[in-house]
């Protein structure tokens, strides 16, 4: 099993003395989807699993199909078809918060230390291919590069046009949901309904939830009189059958918009350009 233990805490503070170059936003590689070749020997499709045990966090590379931990360094197939080897490093304490989600995986505040000299050249090449960074800052992008290389965590989540329109009219954004996974979940739920009354009801539910949550969390600096009140939305959607709940009339112009044509709008993946701004 690959169990990478964290290193001893450093004695010096982890804040750089000179400002680092701002990382470029992660950009989707056109061919980054992993090919479906499970069981095929050679380069493995892997994914990272994290586990916290006995006050230590370990990072484990597992075969994507079998779940079997892989030897390290692992031979990998990169999304662009190249193959390479990667090696995992321990992380500083601040990286090891219990919260487990895409975001901290990709924007860990403490990057691994500089690449040791024995990192194979092909691994550096893979890193540069994915992250687009070279030179001394490559180490700082090592961790995101590993993850984006091995696990398709960061596929952009696009908001369907009808949902985006309804959110905009209500004066709220889907980023009110703190976690990318929550945004993806909401979008997937809306997207799985065909255009029509049911879809409108789901759109209205997401808008209502965003307003209600943002209001309860104190995220809004002022109230918006034109936005539908969360309370009636909640009552309607929580207690009435779906086919009679149409509180989202403001989004009625979305009726009939297909997902494909609606996939124009906003990337809410949390690691894409939107978050990098």
């Amino acid at each position: 099993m690959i169990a990478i233990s964290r290193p001893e805490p450093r004695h010096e503070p982890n804040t750089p003395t000179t400002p680092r170059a701002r990382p470029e936003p992660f950009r989707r590689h056109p061919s980054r989807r992993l090919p479906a070749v499970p069981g095929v020997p050679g380069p493995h499709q892997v994914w990272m699993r994290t586990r916290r045990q006995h006050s230590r966090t370990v990072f484990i590379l597992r075969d994507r199909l079998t779940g079997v931990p892989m030897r390290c360094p692992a031979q990998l197939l990169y999304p662009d078809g190249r193959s390479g080897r990667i090696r995992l490093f321990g992380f500083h304490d601040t990286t090891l918060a219990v919260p487990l989600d895409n975001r901290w995986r990709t924007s860990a505040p403490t990057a691994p230390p500089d690449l040791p000299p024995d990192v194979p050249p092909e691994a550096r090449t893979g890193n540069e291919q994915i992250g687009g960074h070279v030179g001394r800052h490559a180490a700082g992008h090592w961790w995101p590069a590993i993850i984006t290389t091995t696990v398709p965590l960061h596929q952009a989540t696009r908001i369907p046009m009808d949902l985006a329109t309804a959110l905009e009219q209500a004066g709220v954004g889907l980023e009110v949901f703190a976690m990318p996974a929550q945004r993806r979940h909401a979008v997937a739920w809306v997207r799985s309904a065909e255009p029509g009354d049911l879809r409108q009801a789901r759109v209205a539910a997401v808008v209502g939830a965003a307003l209600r949550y943002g209001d309860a969390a104190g995220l809004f600096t002022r109230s918006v009189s034109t936005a539908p009140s969360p309370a009636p939305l909640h009552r309607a959607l929580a207690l009435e059958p779906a086919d009679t709940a149409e509180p989202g009339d403001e989004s009625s112009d979305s009726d009939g918009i297909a997902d494909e044509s609606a996939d124009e709008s906003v990337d809410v993946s949390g690691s894409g350009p939107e978050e990098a701004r």
Partner: protein
Amino acid sequence: MAITGETTVNANSRSEIATRSWKQAAREHGVTDVDALLIALNLYGLSTPLGARVRLQLSVPVGAAARTVSVAAGRVTSPFTLSDDGVLAVNGEPVGCAVRTDVDDAVSGYLRNWDNQRGGWRAATINPASRSRCTGCLPCPTALEPPADPYVNTQEQLHALLDGLLRQLPYGGSLRDLDEVAVSTRCYGTEDAAVDAMLMLRKVLRARRMNARIMLLSSVVRSREAFRYLAENVGPFGLFLTADCVSRRSLLLKDTKADLSPEAMPDLLADARAAGLDTSFTYIVGLDAPADMEWFFRAMLPQVTLFPSIQVMQSHSPVNDHLAHPDAAELAYFLDARRLVEDIMGGLASPLLPEPWRCYRSLWSETYAGQPLPGARR
């Protein structure tokens, strides 16, 4: 409208009120503190700045045998916190200890039902159809997970998956020790596709001389012909009908599930049982009014041969919060449901007991109908 920044809900006062009320509700319902606490943990989740869902090996109270619990994380309004060294606390008061925390990623398979006496696993759950890509049912957390588990659709891939499970067994363990292989996966879409997949799985198991019962969690296998075919060609076989809820089904669930009416479900299970299959169902407590729950349980419980997976609704996102039944904000709602099931089941000719390892978010953890609950916890 501007957003002031990251979520900064000050939930202290709310959570303290919730804590007091749930302890009082537990006393009023004669439920142990451990059971009430675990229901509350499932209901409220963990208060962490980020996170979707975590799987814990949790001891409650500290020092008790560890159990598997999968709960929502990133719930800033929850009174439950988990420290870096694994201490579970409610409003700062330690109540348990997590000896291990995993990201609850969708994986292709995992082992369950740890047999302490024999020192081995007795069941496995596999997700051969890329479970995390399933979307459409609001209460299900899998859509929050990174879609990285592959679609397994050949015998060779199933063998590879089982080989992976084999390597996770303790030394000397065998897959032939498994009594059950559960298939919990993305909806197969059609009855034929599901039956074909089960037939292929049985062929693979036979090739490995495994006679484990196959349990399919599904709502697309519905016909008597399919039940007979499964009994004759795939058995031993059981159906966990994914009922999930009674009301607002079209709004909350994907269409391949929502188009099965709750009224048709008791007869469906009766047909499956008549064909010789084991039967049970899944139900999420937190979406329906108590009256809907009651008629549904009265109709369904007489048709099961395995205790149903009756789960606490875990709210993973504000949208889930928004669509939960209003009464489900209080623990008493869940304790009432628990008592209701115990009462109905107790009146049946062959009452069943929950098997704690089957459900990581059950209404029952340590006790059932006032009695200690036997069986594996993970």
